[in-house]
């Protein structure tokens, strides 16, 4: 895999945002982006700008809410927080991802034993 950063799969960013908000409480866009970068250990290839497309999508689906507020250093910023529908969605997506990653690990383990690599 080398040093190249991970490309995000479709939909994974949404899930990361939901999880971040569920864990951290209300945050602004920059905060969410930074948080994802930190948690991922700078492994994810993320143009921070793309976070806003994800945010607007989640707001439109009613999974997160947004309101204008003031940041820690007194800056006007939009704060996002997860809604009840969002938490339900998060739980559902989490289950899905866990199942998928288990299956994927098993599949990939199989291939490695075959010794083709």
């Amino acid at each position: 895999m080398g040093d190249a950063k991970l490309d995000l799969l479709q939909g994974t960013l949404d899930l990361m945002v939901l999880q971040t908000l569920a864990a951290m409480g209300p945050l602004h866009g920059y905060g969410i982006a930074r948080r994802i970068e930190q948690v991922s250990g700078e492994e994810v290839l993320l143009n921070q700008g793309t976070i806003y497309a994800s945010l607007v999508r989640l707001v439109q689906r009613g999974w997160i809410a947004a309101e204008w507020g003031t940041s820690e250093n007194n800056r006007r910023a939009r704060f996002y927080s997860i809604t009840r529908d969002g938490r339900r969605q998060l739980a559902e997506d989490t289950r899905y991802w866990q199942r998928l990653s288990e299956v994927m690990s098993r599949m990939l383990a199989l291939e490695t034993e075959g010794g083709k690599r």
Partner: protein
Amino acid sequence: MKAFLLQSMNRMRAFIHREPLDQQFDEEAAAHLDMATEENIRNGMAPTEARRQALVRFGGVQQAREQHRATRGLPFLDVLLQDLRYTLRTLRRDRGFAIVAVLILALGIGANVAVFSVVNTILLRPLPFHDPQQLMWIQGPPHEGGLSGVTYSADAFEAYQRRNHSMQGVTAYFAFYGTSDYKLTGRGEPQPVSGVPVVGNFFQVLGVQPYLGRLWTPDELVAKGRPAVLLSYYFWRREFRGDRSIIGQTIDLNNIPTLVTGVMPRSFDFGSVFAPGASMDIYVPAIPDEIRTWGNTLLLVGRVKPGVPMGQAAAEARMLFPDFYYNNKHPEYGKGYSAWTQPLKEHVSGNLRRSLIVLWCAVGMILLIVCVNLSNLLLARTAARDREFAMRSALGAGRGRLVRQLLTESFVLSAAGAVLGLAFAYGVVAWLAHQGSLALPLLNELRVDPKALGWTVLIAVIAAVLFGLAPGLRFSRVDLQGALKDGGHGSTTGRQHDRMRGALVITEVALACVLLVGAGLLLRSFLKVLDINLGFQPEHAAALKVDYDDGGNAAKRGAILKQMLDKVKAIPGIEAAGITDMLPLDRNRDWNLGAKGVTYSAKDQPGALVQIVTPGYLDAMGMRLKEGRDFSWADGPTNQRVVILDEAAAKRLWPGQDPIGRIAVIGEGEPRVIGIVADVRDTGVEDSDGPEAYLPPTQENPVGAELVVRTTQPPDVLAKSVMATLRALNPGQTATEFRSLDALVDHAVSPRRFFVVLVGAFAGLGLLLACLGIYGVISYSVTRQTQEIGIRMALGSSRARVQLGVIARTMRLAVVGIAAGVAASFFVAQLIASLLFGTKPFDPLTFAAMTALLLLVALLAGYLPALRASRIDPMVALRTN
């Protein structure tokens, strides 16, 4: 699901409220960058580097904004709006092209919508009655006789009403009505009124309710009952100014006080269904007891019981009618009618089906030609825009996006054409709907209805795809690099392009050729019809309905008519005058006719159309007396009975012998034949000549009177003095107008003229478009070859040679197109063979003339560019390129 709905709603909202959302994003992005910069500074970066790093991490504000928009809004619509804006901008820049394209499309689409409306009204839409599919038309078998042969007696009608088992109801109308049969008096000048007597249950069987008032009650439907009348909607509006209080009042019809029981709805127009081109003002009860002894007078309409197939009802009618007596009181007159049935709709519009379908195809072909033409125009335009597209492509526009742009253009053009075309169709349809004299059924129902609107949308879309496709396809093959490099001059794509446009022009010429040949054949037929020897001269002759009161006395009638004619003939400008009771091409009756001493079987009993005419009538009509003499006033009630026959009748009765002086048996009389006239087209211009007989009013009872005058001046000029003369003789004379015999003939040929004019117009349009197409292609190729031509001329090629080259290229296209067109025309001509009159489908004259016309027009279309080519100055051509 809930999330999806919410999102869709939000996306739509975001699409509309674009500005505030963009602003919100910009604010968020700015805050984001500021926070990132601050953090970077806190981490020890220099401010400019901190800002730069923040921007790098953000990854392009513009891209993020686009992504934001695409996620939150409706990107598809966004792109569409963009394309539309761009299209409108380019079209505005290319105003000439846009106007020509929209106009061509409007003509094509408008013509299609108008014709569709006609087809829809006459063929597709059901009749304006209740459950019209149950209605069955019943008449005697059509033959060369007149109305008497296809009508039934009151006795037969009632017998059928009693004895059938498959009808819910059977009704009838009196077939021998004429225009202005009635006289409305007591309201100023006596007014002529057209009316038709219908059997009491007529409206119930058709399922039509009166708009005001009521239908007739039993005491109005018996002999010597209370006289009653129903008014037509338009007559009520015109004559009584829509006065509702007229219901229940009496009006004087033929000097009889008659009760107005109701007004029929606007949608009910007897003429439009049963007598195209005629309009009825009133409906009066036809009372069987009053017409029982009048012989065959009724035409029947039945309503089949639900669940009974019309075929079964028809079979029953065919079985029953042979058993009915002509007259129940006189079984010795014989029995044996036959029934010839059709669905009523078929009776009304069946014989127009083929013509209408031809019209529909012709107009469809126009649309095709329009599409081909536009395709050509667009191709020329995209070729000129190759570099623009190549540039846009190089700047990152996807190929799909560019094709989409092209299609958007064709849809915008098509939509504009459709809107304009619809307006055009509305105008044409409104005009047609008021052509009362046009003998086409259901014209009063003609309008652009929702179905026609749907049709408009459909053909607009089809057109847009058809003509947008060629440029789109071509574009997807264009070599962008090549286009950018050499600008398309003389490259292989250019040549391919010319081939494609050539093929389009050939198609166009072929289609125009088919239209022209079809129109030519129909036109030739129409001219043949106009050329028919009618047996009388309609020019300079006119007819006028006259009233007189003879008290049923034949001698008195003779005196009145003689005096009337003498006075009228004395008016300056009147060359000849005579009176008949039924005009040819207007209405007719037929009676049995035989030679005395010969017994005929019921099957080959000859009949003749009978007119009761005064001395001088033959002259006034311009009929030709072949032998013998005209009637004279001396042929009185007590003298030897006399008859004049036409050649067909004489031949039928005494083949190969001299008929003059022989005794004929006609009606109840046995007159001597005193004259023979040339055959007259009595029932229709295109019908064959049937036997005819003329009797004098002094020896037979006429039904009404039409004064026919032959004039040296236009009849209208004389109308006043003739009317004054008639009024002086009879103050009750109605204020009718002269009907010129030309108008009578005109009315009879109006359906054919209608089709010829339309198909001819379409052919003309096709020719014009083909001409434009040829001109466009040749002119464009001359422009492209300016340099080449310049070189040739510099090398010594003469102007004439250059011209010849261009014209030869034009002719090649035209000849190939015409060859294909002529081949297709042979096929099409066979399809329309039944619409032709006196013209063979492969009429060589028509084919040759139309081909020559097309060649000539192609030559003209090629000549202008050729002229331009020959005027190219080699020095200028070489320098500018």
